[in-house]
């Protein structure tokens, strides 16, 4: 806890020097996110060129006045004491229920993204810039393919991520390798804070991500064109816009990562074969799991009220998989207790499940578009 406080103090001193407003949000806040974090918003109409110029002019004027008055911009800051010990425990429980480090890193990535999205929406930001360098994106590209997120590559590693509708995520640093950035920071004495992550000081083969990173870094040492080749390849990736995507039906998007659902394939696919073999081998385990989930409301005191105790039961473990894409499904399947997921995910999943049940019931009365 003290390390956290010292890092926060260091970060704060760096931020106040820049003069921009800053937000320090603890990861525990993930447990108080609303379900809107999972729903893509509608974007405003594209502004024309003239209004961009006006906006820039206005900004430079305001900046000058700000500098003259030397006003510190309104700094809003969530203090670390705001997150309760219960939320910290819930977070620890969530991460300890994931067995592999790969899944933990994926989960961390996803939770961070939702949190950033939520803070951006709360403060009406239309764009978010992430600081991923070329090298980091190259590693991310390869490790995403390895964990099964190949379908979302264009959004995860491209310059512009349009999945979330109203908030656009851009990556301006993707042209610079980490070596260049290191040199720059060193020469221009950019203050930085190093915070140990999940995979710091871990064995190289502890997770898919660290293995990929080690591979790329070692290859880069002998063949300096590795990272830039991977980067050029990723530049050519684009998401295809099928008519289905443009209808903005949230049912066709993954619950967790908001990319197109790729796990709904026809019965003759290889993916379906793996599903069937998994179901056959787990049939006995599933009956035991359903019994234990019924008892969860009574025994488990950290259940969020309103989720377990409502008439909508939590979806059984296998049903959550129908709303997520392949790689998120792998991560969810890796969890021992699905109930340790934050409540906003569980409520959204329950809502989608009831919606799909309703749709099944009225299926014969619905008119399809091609009728």
């Amino acid at each position: 806890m003290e390390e956290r406080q010292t890092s926060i103090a260091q970060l704060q001193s760096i931020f106040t020097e820049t003069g921009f407003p800053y937000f320090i949000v603890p990861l525990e806040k993930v447990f108080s996110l609303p379900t809107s974090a999972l729903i893509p918003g509608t974007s405003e109409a594209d502004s024309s060129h003239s209004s961009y110029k006006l906006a820039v002019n206005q900004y430079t004027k305001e900046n000058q006045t700000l500098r003259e008055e030397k006003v510190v911009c309104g700094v809003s800051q969530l203090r670390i004491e705001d997150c309760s010990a219960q939320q910290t425990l819930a977070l620890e429980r969530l991460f300890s229920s994931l067995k592999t480090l790969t899944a933990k890193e994926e989960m961390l990535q996803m939770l961070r993204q939702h949190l950033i999205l939520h803070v951006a929406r709360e403060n009406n930001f239309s764009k978010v810039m992430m600081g991923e360098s070329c090298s980091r994106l190259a590693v991310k590209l390869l490790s995403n393919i390895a964990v099964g997120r190949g379908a979302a590559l264009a959004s995860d590693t491209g310059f512009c991520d349009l999945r979330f509708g109203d908030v656009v995520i851009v990556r301006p640093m993707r042209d610079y390798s980490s070596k260049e950035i290191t040199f720059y920071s060193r020469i221009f004495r950019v203050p930085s804070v190093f915070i140990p992550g999940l995979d710091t000081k871990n064995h190289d083969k502890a997770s898919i991500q660290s293995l990929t990173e080690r591979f790329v870094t070692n290859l880069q040492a002998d063949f300096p064109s590795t990272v830039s080749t991977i980067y050029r390849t990723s530049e050519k990736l684009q998401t295809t816009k099928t008519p289905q995507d443009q209808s903005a039906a949230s049912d066709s998007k993954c619950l967790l990562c908001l990319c197109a659902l790729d796990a709904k394939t026809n019965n003759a696919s290889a993916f379906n074969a793996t599903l069937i073999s998994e179901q056959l081998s787990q049939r006995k385990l599933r009956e035991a799991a359903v019994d234990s989930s019924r008892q969860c409301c009574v025994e488990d005191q950290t259940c969020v009220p309103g989720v377990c105790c409502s008439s909508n039961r939590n979806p059984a473990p296998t049903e959550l998989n129908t709303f997520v894409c392949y790689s998120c499904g792998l991560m969810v399947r890796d969890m021992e207790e699905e109930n340790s997921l934050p409540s906003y995910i569980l409520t959204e999943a329950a809502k989608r499940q009831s919606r799909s049940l309703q749709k099944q019931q009225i299926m014969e009365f619905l008119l399809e578009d091609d009728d």
Partner: protein
Amino acid sequence: MAAPIGLHLEFGGGAELLFDGVKNHHITLPDRSDPWDMKQLLVWIRGNMLKERPELFLQGDTVRPGILVLINEADWELMGELEYQLQDKDNVASQGYGQEQGLIKRVTLSSQCPDGIPREIVD
């Protein structure tokens, strides 16, 4: 016949975790008949300073890929890498720049909010 050499060592970007979190070290290399070079310095660091997990800093004879070494603020590749002869009052800095030891862990900025003033979020 080399006199004892005083060096200033710096570790950053996560490399300091292997040295008890201490970023700056002043060391004095003892007297030796041959002049000190980087190779021997690395061996000396391994023997005397590295508290844990030597394989995260060194790989064989040289440093692990993902660690940048600067001698007097210049890339050591320009100075001859392992063959560079150390001189008194040299400044040797090792910066980790691999992903898990990233300098800029996560910097998030946002712009073009309705009133036109860019704001910054970092977590």
